[in-house]
């Protein structure tokens, strides 16, 4: 009897804690969304009559193209480096993650400038090129998840499938790929959110998405309500996307019991080995090598012509700002994400709603989150709960809070999907041994899901490192990140001056990617 009561109490307190977190990170978005209660029908009608159909068309085209593109590219590259041996495979396995380090807006302006010559200024500004740029910057999300999923699979599944009449290729389609689906869906979901909320890259290519429309309406007319309604449309699309995958998953599980023997690696020879190398290096060249080369030549030009005067402070100063912001934001997202996953009762119906709430910020564009946070924090400042002279708006805490609102979903998604891969029988046996939910989470699920959690953290770190709109609006004095420097230069079309900070972002991103990969490799070794 008493144990039941104390269990209930524990369950209640963890639910309360989780609810509090979910509420805290969703308030800024809800504040914005709230305005839909008083719909501004006239603007809405005008939008329907003018831009909205185009926005929806562009958003749908971009979303579908990039989702399919990243799924195909990320999955096939992940399969290539996991299942086949060819010259340079190990190095490529690492390098193919590095496009993560190149922000979309940087890759966008480099490509825009590079392709201007052959394609013409008109030809280069196309939705297809925009989709291509987004695909090659975002595919690593799918690639990382795919690679992890493939590595965790057992060769025996493929062996059995082959004994049952499948060729190696058929076994991939019928067994390997379906079993990797939750991971792939996790990666694709991240890509989908990034595409839906992108406001930097699309503008370079004259693509009018809904996210772009939110800012267009808001900042062009000052009509916050109409902008909010568009933002709600985005949230709706995101929720439908996620719900579709959850529904399709149904009761099925994707983990195998028993030992994980890993996949056998097939050695490619001759033409096929060359082909594999060419594909891998080609993607790396387009996504990283070419832009880095262009940035370096621009940086040299900037130095030669002494074009460095657009910003206050030197490289070191901006670098330290970026590291401080990204570091603390990442730790915060990680801590809250872990707490959230640990405390969430996955059997309870409310958990879906809480998770949706907590990840709302990832479904709306950065500037919308920023204004939502601004309004929320300013309201708290006016109430005056904080000691005299302390304000949240313009404080470091406020900035970190906003970044958590925006990127908690990335941490949560990564942690949750790795935990989902921990065999339920392990969890069940731990529960039968009398361990509570938190204990199972901290002792069993989290350590087993360790590599996935590190991966999620690095993704958050890279996201916050590249983040511009929130930092731009909410940064405290004395915090000038590298993307701010890039913005200072690119908003004046001074591409050459944007080279140094862009390179610095890429360099830090590369280090993060290296850390990520090293940890994943190392983690895999200690497990096996």
């Amino acid at each position, binding site marked *: 009897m008493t144990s039941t009561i104390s269990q209930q109490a524990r369950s209640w307190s963890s639910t309360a804690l989780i609810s509090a977190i979910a509420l805290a990170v969703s308030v800024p978005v809800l504040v914005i969304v709230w305005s839909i209660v008083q719909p501004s029908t006239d603007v809405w009608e005008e939008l329907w009559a003018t831009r909205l159909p185009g926005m929806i068309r562009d958003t749908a085209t971009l979303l579908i193209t990039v989702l399919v593109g990243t799924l195909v590219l990320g999955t096939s590259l992940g399969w290539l480096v996991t299942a086949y041996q060819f010259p340079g495979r190990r190095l490529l396995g690492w390098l193919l993650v590095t496009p993560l380090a190149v922000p979309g807006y940087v890759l966008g302006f480099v490509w825009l400038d590079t392709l201007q010559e052959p394609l013409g200024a008109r030809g280069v500004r196309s939705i297809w090129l925009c989709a291509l740029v987004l695909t090659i910057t975002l595919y690593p999300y799918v690639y990382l998840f795919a690679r992890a999923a493939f590595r965790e699979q057992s060769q025996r599944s493929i062996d059995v*499938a082959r004994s049952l*009449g499948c060729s190696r290729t058929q076994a991939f389609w019928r067994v390997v790929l*379906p079993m990797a689906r939750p991971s792939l869906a996790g990666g694709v979901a991240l890509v989908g959110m990034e595409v839906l909320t992108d406001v930097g890259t699309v503008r370079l290519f004259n693509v009018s998405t809904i996210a772009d429309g939110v800012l267009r309406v808001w900042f062009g007319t000052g009509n916050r309500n109409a902008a909010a309604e568009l933002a709600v449309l985005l949230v709706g699309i995101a929720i439908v996307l996620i719900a579709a995958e959850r529904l399709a998953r149904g009761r099925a599980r994707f983990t195998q019991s*028993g030992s994980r023997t890993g996949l056998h690696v097939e050695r490619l020879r001759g033409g096929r080995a060359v082909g594999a190398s060419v594909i891998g290096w080609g993607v790396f060249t387009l996504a990283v090598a070419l832009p880095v080369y262009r940035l370096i030549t621009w940086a040299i030009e900037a130095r030669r012509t002494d074009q460095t005067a657009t910003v206050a402070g030197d490289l070191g100063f901006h670098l330290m700002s970026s590291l401080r912001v990204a570091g603390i934001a990442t730790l915060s997202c990680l801590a809250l994400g872990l707490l959230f996953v640990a405390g969430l009762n996955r059997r309870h119906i409310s958990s879906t709603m809480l998770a949706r709430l907590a990840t709302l910020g990832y479904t709306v564009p950065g500037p919308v989150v920023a204004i939502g946070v601004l309004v929320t924090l300013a309201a708290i400042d006016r109430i005056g709960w904080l000691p005299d002279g302390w304000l949240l708006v313009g404080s470091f805490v406020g900035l970190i809070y906003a970044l958590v609102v925006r990127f908690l979903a990335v941490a949560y998604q990564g942690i949750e999907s790795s935990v989902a891969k921990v065999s339920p*029988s392990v969890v069940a046996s731990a529960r039968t041994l009398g361990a509570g939910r938190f204990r199972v989470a901290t002792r069993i699920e989290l350590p087993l899901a360790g590599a996935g959690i590190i991966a999620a953290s690095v993704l958050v770190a890279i996201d916050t490192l590249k983040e511009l709109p929130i930092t731009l609006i909410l940064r405290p004095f004395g915090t000038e990140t590298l993307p701010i420097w890039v913005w200072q230069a690119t908003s004046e079309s001074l591409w050459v001056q944007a080279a140094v900070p862009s390179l610095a972002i890429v360099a830090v991103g590369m280090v993060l990617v290296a850390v990520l990969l090293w940890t994943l490799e190392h983690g895999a070794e200690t497990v096996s």
Partner: protein
Amino acid sequence: MNGATQTRFHGAEATATVPDSMDATLEQPDAALSVSGVTRRIAGRDVVDQVSFDVTDGELVIIVGPSGCGKSSLLRAIAGLDPVAAGRVLLDGRDVTALPPEKRRIGLVFQDHALFPHLRVEQNIAFGLSHLDRAVRARRVHELLELVRLPGVAKRYPHELSGGEQQRIALARALAPDPAVVLLDEPFASLDPSLRDDVRTDVIEALRLRNAAAVLVTHDREEALALGDRVAVMSNGQMLQIDRPEEIYERPSDRFVATFLGEASFLPDPDQPGLAMMARPHDLDLAPRGDDVVTARRYMGAAWRYTVRRSDGSLIDVDLPGGPGTKPLAIGDACTVTIDAGHPLHRLPA
């Protein structure tokens, strides 16, 4: 049913006549599986070294050996999952050595059953039946579920089944496309001991009912002796001997086979130098008094097992029947080891 039993015994006798010359194994025209001279080489080492044997329809051959002896590698080579460096694999008289696994018609069952977690039970079983039309497929799935005595689980997912049920489904899946031979790699090793006997019985029964030729790999000698129509012992990549269980237990070809399948001591043959006599503990007796000394004893229910140090310093195990009224020897008691087999002891090279 009768026919199946007949064939099995026929096969057993056929090879029993040439127990010592593995290379001379004849490719039988009616063999479901015929393996000859198969060698699997990894990094210059022959992990499977010139192995030859046949399996006929309805026969269960069990390959037993210590871990790392190459028995699983042999199975993978037969299945076509790994390439062979030399030798041939024939299925129903058809040379499949060059064929990929999907073209061989082989059923596979692994220790971890490797059910596809994303598919329902019926979809798992029907996995290899995609060439059949819907109705036939459904009927076949139904039949197989009946066969493995799990008629009600078609709509479940693998994680909703117990370990034993999962293994039976794995067998049903392997049998579904009517394979020429079923290969089972340690199929019972991961099962709970309390379940193991039941699952074992059901699996063997299902194989018999389908008259399937099967090769089962295990490290458990009791399992091998109890279940196999024939038992093969492997060590260091070589198949040392293959024979009916009683033959291989009673007439092992060398000391490794003898000791791997059970306790055995070797006594010098007084008549033929260069040969040794194999004595299982129950082939021996202890006479009171003498130069030998009891150093340990263990009660095993049906018998007492004594460990005796002989006058030449060697240790030897001897089983003496227990039962009411018998008075066991004590540790330190003097005695003499004698042979009391009721049959001539098997002789093998010293």
